[in-house]
């Protein structure tokens, strides 16, 4: 590889594009996405509050509201809407910043089309949940049939998010044209990788919704192949969790080094990490279907093998984070083995909130290995253990990181100051969130091992003795639910303040982008040959899914007519 280093190693201090306000039009675009995501967060949290207090026996719901209706609203608003809008807003901010400072009109047009489609779809789906015509939970398993408009709404969200992906691809392509031979900025590279992963993953659920659920819910087709629909859903359902996780990783890898006044530990390893996620997050969906018929044991085990490979990029990330932190402490003059720990900005919520999330990722990851362990899954499948698992991994690791992002991104967009008071309230809010989730998800894990099923309204199973063991954990879960909802309300209050009321900045707000420790070390070119990695991904998907899905089509099950069971 015979390329010249075009850009000189940067002097200390950020490069020019990292200062300066956002373009007015980009700002409107990003704030629109964040606004919808925060609205979904509020709806989802309130639904979670009443749902959580009902199932633990603290309250009874009024006749007009169903437990499962609230649970559907909780799952759809938080897992599908809040995350997707927040992630796209955050990725836009960093790609616009690092790809020559702003989007171009064509890119913005794509982005707005995506936003309008996704928002229309969200409103449509939430209305159907509100009228109790889509009480099918966020996994919408057939043959329970929701109103067709619920599925159409979801399809609009998916198709809209593809436009968001194209926005990012178009700006990346534009930058590559303008900077031939240069290595792309890390933030943009990771955003491209995240959206490639997202588009490959959503192909599955889009096929399920467009070709199976919508025609069937309208009555145009009489029966649905249930097992095929589940396979398509989980083809999407597992990479979905990496779609949540990767933006958090972007923040950890790219932004945090600058916030803690350190350096990027490496510019190449994070790229490799993201490639491994593209390769090994899709051909793994069967590990959500280990307990069911219609899929051969061999294929289940093969996908377990692929699932476990993502342990490797997770270990790489754990190492890189600690190395980045140590490096930052030592750059500030820390000596000895552990003095660097004290040099870290513990009182800065932009750092502190995601670090709490990272800490929770250790038990969350260990629990995930249990879930995916073929035989061991039998002990925990569909128990509250699983709910506890993703309240650690998604609701704590990812969402706590999103809190940390929002605390500086919102004022950076409105050119306001993250005041000391807001920062300190944010630290309080993060603690409340972390401890609340620790109690909530911890209890869910334990009571799940005692066999309590997930997704179940308040019941004592006619006072069966098994349930007695569960009761003390319900007390903890109920109290913890109140904790985390208070934390969300506090967060939203701080965000409103930062959005509209915090003092304006005289100079432009900083957008933190870390610089590599050793800029002379260029990432290998092959890491950016996307067609190669997409082709390898396609082969892996074909290996993992080809035969079993072919069998589902060649030797189809009898199929099921639609049923409304609520």
């Amino acid at each position: 590889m015979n390329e010249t280093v075009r850009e000189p190693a940067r002097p200390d201090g950020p490069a020019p594009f990292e200062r300066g306000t956002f373009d007015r039009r980009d700002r409107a675009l990003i704030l629109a996405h964040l606004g919808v995501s925060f609205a979904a967060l509020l709806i989802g949290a309130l639904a979670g509050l009443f749902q959580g207090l009902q199932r633990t026996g603290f309250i009874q719901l009024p006749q007009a509201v169903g437990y499962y209706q609230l649970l559907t609203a909780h799952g759809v608003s938080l897992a599908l809407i809040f995350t997707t809008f927040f992630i796209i807003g955050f990725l836009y901010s960093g790609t616009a910043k690092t790809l020559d400072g702003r989007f171009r009109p064509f890119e913005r047009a794509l982005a707005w089309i995506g936003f309008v489609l996704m928002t229309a779809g969200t409103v449509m789906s939430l209305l159907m949940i509100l009228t109790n015509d889509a009480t099918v939970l966020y996994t919408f398993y057939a043959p329970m049939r929701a109103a067709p408009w619920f599925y159409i709404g979801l399809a609009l969200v998916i198709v809209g998010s593809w436009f968001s992906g194209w926005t990012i691809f178009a700006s990346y392509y534009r930058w590559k044209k303008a900077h031939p031979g240069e290595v792309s900025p890390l933030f943009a590279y990771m955003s491209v990788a995240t959206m490639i992963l997202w588009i490959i993953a959503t192909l599955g659920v889009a096929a399920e919704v467009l070709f199976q659920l919508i025609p069937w819910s309208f009555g145009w087709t009489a029966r649905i192949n249930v097992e095929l629909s589940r396979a398509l859903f989980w083809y999407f359902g597992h990479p979905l969790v990496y779609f949540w996780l990767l933006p958090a990783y972007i923040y950890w890898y790219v932004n945090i080094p600058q916030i803690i006044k350190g350096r990027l530990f490496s510019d190449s390893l994070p790229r490799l990490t993201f490639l491994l996620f593209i390769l090994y997050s899709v051909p793994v969906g069967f590990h959500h279907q280990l307990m069911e018929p219609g899929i051969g044991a061999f294929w289940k085990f093969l996908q377990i093998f692929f699932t476990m490979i993502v342990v490797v990029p997770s270990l790489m990330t754990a190492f890189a984070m600690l190395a980045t932190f140590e490096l930052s402490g030592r750059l500030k003059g820390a000596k000895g083995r552990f003095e660097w720990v004290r040099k870290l900005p513990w009182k800065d919520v932009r750092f502190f909130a995601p670090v709490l999330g990272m800490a929770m990722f250790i038990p969350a990851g260990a629990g995930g290995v249990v879930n995916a362990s073929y035989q061991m899954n039998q002990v925990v499948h569909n128990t509250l253990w699983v709910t506890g698992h993703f309240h650690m991994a998604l609701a704590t690791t990812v969402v706590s990181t999103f809190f940390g992002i929002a605390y500086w991104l919102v004022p950076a967009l409105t050119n306001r100051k993250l005041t000391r008071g807001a920062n300190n309230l944010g630290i309080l809010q993060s603690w409340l969130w972390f401890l609340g989730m620790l109690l909530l998800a911890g209890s869910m894990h334990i009571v799940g091992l005692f066999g309590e099923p997930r997704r179940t309204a308040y019941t004592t199973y006619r006072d069966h003795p098994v349930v007695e063991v569960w009761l003390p954990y319900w007390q903890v879960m109920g109290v913890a639910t109140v904790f985390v909802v208070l934390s969300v309300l506090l967060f939203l209050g701080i965000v409103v303040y930062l959005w509209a009321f915090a003092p304006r900045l005289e100079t432009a707000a900083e957008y933190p982008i870390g610089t590599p420790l050793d800029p002379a070390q260029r990432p290998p070119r092959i890491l950016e040959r996307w067609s190669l990695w997409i082709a390898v991904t396609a082969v892996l998907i074909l290996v993992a899914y080809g035969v079993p899905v072919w069998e589902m089509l060649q030797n189809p099950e009898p199929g099921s007519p639609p049923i409304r069971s609520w």
Partner: protein
Amino acid sequence: MLNIHLPRYERIWLWIGGASLVLFLIILALLALLGDLNPPGNMRMIAPEAVRTTPPFDKPGLKQIGPNEYRATVVAQMFTFQPASMTVPAGSTVHFEVTSPDVVHGFEIPGTNVNMMVIPGHITEFTYTFRKKGDHLIVCNEYCGSGHQVMMGSITVQ
């Protein structure tokens, strides 16, 4: 090709992590192949409308098929199990076969490894030996509709 600089400690860290992962996967594979420890499954199918008229599901229940060996034919439906209760002597091996005439259900016995998805159109099978005496609760652990929380059964081990 992938000429990426890895610091020495990171290489050690990844080797330890990678090796324990491989060891772990080998153990899982050996348990599956030699110990015959596989999760429930099976490829048998049945049309959901035909469940109530097709043997053996037209007469769900417990049938002795050998010394200390039983076959439990169970229909999981909105929002009951048929049969609702079963009784077996301690030490019995029970071969479960479960299907659904309507939506997706779960079949879980807390405190045991019995945990199955019941998918309409398919028959799920799993074998378990009950050693502990007592009244075991059977719950549906997959959301199946407004009465999901009352869907229960019992298996008594004497």
